[in-house]
């Protein structure tokens, strides 16, 4: 679907005028070509290897292999370095060596130079090695593949520039990965992992490379060289860009960026609203204070009024002070009376107690002459009412006792009354103290007012307040009219983006069903062409699971097939992806395949021959497909292939490099 078609469908869906939709596309930088597939081909050009061999044939070696488009077969006896060629290509293009490259072989190498065209860009990978470890890694970029030939370092004059350099293996691998992912428009493949701290992990370029360098037939993976994390399915989807996928990605990204920008703008607006509201509230409070103070000043308009108030308050204060003096004097008088009454009660009580005590004691002697008072005198007092001391008659009757009780009672009443009076006087005095203090304050206030009025301060303050009120009223009004809105926005760009994403998602969902049908047909046809004769049909799903249906047989799974059958199916899947990409103009597999020793998976020579012939035929039919195959059977190759390059050792029994 072109962007014009998409714009038209958006216009119909949203009701917006077509020019408006196209203007949005233009604003978003969506050119008409944006919907076309992103190119991601890799074409291998050459590999140069140099070093020093520690086994026969001993000594230094140096060899360069050149690779053309189509099928190239590396034919040599076993243990003659065929697989190592693939591993050295892998080290360069993947950025890191696989464990398959034997340690002793690694130790021989001193230099690897690999040229390739990646997504249309000629690149030269230059690795310097020592004792099996990389000590320097450089990637050169040139305008043309020819410029790279023989280039060891950057040659500005020839358009050869250095785009990557690393001094250790890990850094080189990380930088090559970043470079290849960017050039090939690949995304990291997220997957759920219970081993990762975040619960998720992701595959990068080495995982994608596993779909270029096919594993041996006996491996369980359909696509790629790992069987974890649903990688096959993710690679399948990664290599099978659906129609408009790139455009959809860009639209979604644009929408997310707008969402993010909108959120940031909303946050800013909210902060601004809060700030303005806070400032408005402050201004309101200041305005209220200024108005209130102005109203107070208006109450005391003239000096004459102030003088009248001064006179009235002075009179009040003087009256209050007089009342206070009187209250204090009253209190002191009542306090003194209470003490007198208290003392009187004490006296009565003590006197009576003493009287009772001493009267209970019998007189012993005359207090004057100390003559003893005998029992007869004491008996006479007790029974005849004659004083034992002076012999006078005495009255010890009830009248005395009644008088004493009455005196005590009266003293108690007096004390109770004087206590109440004292408390009342104290309360009254405290009230008058507070009242007088208030009157003094009022008098002081009006005295200050008078002083201010006489100094012209009131008029100055009134003018100042009038100005302030006017200014604050203007400020508050201005804030209230500010067009700050918390309403959600609904702009044309957003409407167009939403509609475009929805339409493309629908289109992809419909297209992917058709694409998978085509893919299944292609895989089955290709695999039969590779010698999988009794294969009826296959069904591959988005998770990369491949169901195999043999003629008249039940459903089987990829992993239960024989190694040879698995190899055929694996190649068939990759080639089917490539063909599908070409037919529909969608980005897909890079088109480079490294297949190590398919012969080892074979039992019958005929089968091996059939596979080679099929691959040669496939390369001829499929633009951009480059397949490298290794085999130990040079005779078979020579017999079978007519149009393919065959690379062999320099002499019989010699190593390939």
């Amino acid at each position, binding site marked *: 679907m072109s962007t014009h078609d998409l714009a038209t469908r958006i216009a119909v869906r949203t009701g917006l005028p077509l020019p408006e939709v196209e203007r949005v596309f233009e604003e978003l930088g969506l050119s008409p070509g944006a919907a076309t597939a992103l190119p991601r081909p890799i074409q291998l050009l050459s590999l140069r290897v140099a070093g020093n061999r520690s086994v026969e044939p001993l000594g230094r070696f140096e060899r360069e292999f050149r690779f053309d488009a189509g099928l190239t077969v590396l034919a040599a006896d076993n243990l003659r370095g065929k697989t190592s060629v693939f591993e050295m290509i892998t080290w360069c293009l993947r950025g890191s060596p696989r464990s398959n490259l034997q340690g002793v072989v690694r130790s021989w190498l001193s230099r690897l130079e690999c040229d390739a065209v990646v997504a249309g860009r000629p690149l030269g990978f230059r690795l310097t090695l020592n004792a099996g470890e990389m000590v320097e890694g450089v990637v050169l970029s040139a305008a043309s593949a020819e410029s790279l030939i023989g280039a060891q370092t950057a040659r500005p004059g020839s358009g050869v520039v250095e785009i990557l350099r690393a001094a250790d293996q890990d850094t080189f691998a990380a930088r090559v990965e970043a470079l290849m992912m960017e050039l090939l428009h690949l995304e990291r493949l997220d997957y759920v992992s219970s081993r990762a701290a975040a619960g998720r992990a992701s595959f990068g370029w080495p995982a994608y490379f596993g779909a270029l360098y096919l594993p041996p037939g006996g491996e369980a993976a359909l696509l790629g060289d790992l069987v974890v994390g649903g990688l096959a399915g993710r690679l399948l989807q990664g290599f099978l860009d659906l129609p408009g996928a790139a455009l959809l990605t860009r639209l979604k990204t644009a929408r997310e960026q707008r969402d993010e920008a909108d959120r940031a703008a909303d946050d800013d607006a909210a902060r601004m609203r809060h700030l303005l509201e806070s400032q408005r509230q402050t201004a309101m409070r200041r305005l209220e204070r200024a108005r209130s103070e102005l109203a107070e000043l208006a109450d005391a308009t003239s000096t004459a009024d102030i003088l009248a108030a001064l006179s009235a308050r002075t009179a009040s204060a003087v009256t209050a002070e007089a009342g206070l003096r009187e209250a204090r004097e009253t209190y002191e008088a009542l306090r003194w009376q209470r*003490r007198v009454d*208290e003392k009187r009660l004490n006296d009565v009580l003590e006197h009576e107690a003493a009287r009772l*005590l001493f009267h209970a004691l019998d007189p012993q*002697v005359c*207090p004057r002459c100390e003559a003893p008072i005998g029992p007869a005198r004491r008996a006479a007092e007790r029974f005849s009412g004659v004083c034992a*001391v002076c012999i006078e008659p005495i009255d010890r009757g009830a009248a005395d006792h009644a008088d004493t009780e009455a005196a005590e009672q009266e003293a108690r009443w007096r004390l109770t009354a004087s206590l109440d009076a004292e408390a009342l006087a104290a309360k009254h005095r405290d009230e008058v103290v507070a009242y007088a203090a208030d009157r003094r304050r009022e008098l002081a206030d009006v005295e200050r007012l008078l002083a201010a009025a006489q100094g012209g301060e009131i008029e100055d303050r009134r003018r100042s307040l009038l100005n302030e009120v006017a200014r604050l009223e203007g400020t508050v009004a201005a804030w209230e009219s500010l067009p700050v809105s918390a309403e959600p926005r609904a702009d044309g760009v957003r409407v167009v983006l939403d509609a475009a994403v929805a339409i493309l998602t629908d289109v992809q969902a419909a297209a992917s069903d058709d694409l998978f049908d085509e893919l299944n047909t292609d895989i089955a046809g290709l695999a039969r062409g590779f010698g999988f004769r009794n294969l009826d049909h296959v069904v591959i799903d988005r998770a990369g699971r491949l169901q195999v249906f043999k003629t008249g047989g039940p459903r089987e799974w990829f992993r239960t097939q024989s190694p040879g059958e698995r190899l055929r199916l694996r190649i068939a899947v990759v080639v089917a992806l490539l063909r599908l990409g070409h037919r529909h103009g969608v980005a897909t597999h890079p088109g480079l395949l490294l297949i190590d020793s398919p012969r080892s998976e074979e039992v019958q020579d005929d089968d091996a021959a059939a596979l080679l012939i099929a691959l040669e035929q496939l390369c001829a039919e499929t633009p951009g497909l480059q397949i490298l195959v290794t085999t130990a059977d040079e005779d078979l190759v020579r017999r079978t292939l007519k149009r393919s390059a065959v690379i062999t050792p320099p002499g019989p029994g010699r190593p390939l490099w």
Partner: protein
Amino acid sequence: MRLLLIISTAAVPMSRPPAGDPALSDAVAVLESQVRLQKLDFWVRNPDFVANELINEYEAGGDSDLLELAQAIIDSDEPDVRRYPMMRFLFGAYEPLDDALAVLRSAHLVVRRKRGSAGRVQRHDYYLTRSGSDTADRIVRDLPVFAYFAERTRLVARLADGYRGTQLKDRQYQQEEYRNTPIGERIATIAPQVRERLREHVAPGRRDQRPASVA
């Protein structure tokens, strides 16, 4: 009653009664000199002078409790309610004690005896009899109306401990108002002056300062 409590509290116990006087055959303690008795009575009857003496004791190196007690006395109504002013006589505070003593003597609680020969300086001693001591104990134990006097006589006896009568008179004379009171007039209260002394002692930063002369 007040005199009985003073004598019973301040009298010095005797191991045996004086010989040759049948009236003293059951005497258990003696308070020597009328001057001493008068001075003790003066303190009991004048709480403001007691508070003043407590401040003196504190300034002479006594415990801070003395100051707190003086403050409590002067802040209460005691100086007014419990004040029984005395006349100034030739030897200081004086009030005829005969009436009160006659009651004590008649009941054989206290016996007064003169010492010294005629024409020479004479001194009265006050003997507390066994029944006088028992009665005083009964008063303290059974008559709460006299609790104030019981407590105050104990305090005054403690203050006067070790001083003879003339020495006590000298200490009381130290007070201007006491010394300047015309003979035959009532001795005025010194409560305002005592309050001022207390204010100086409890003012911030001065609590622990005492006059340099006694420091």
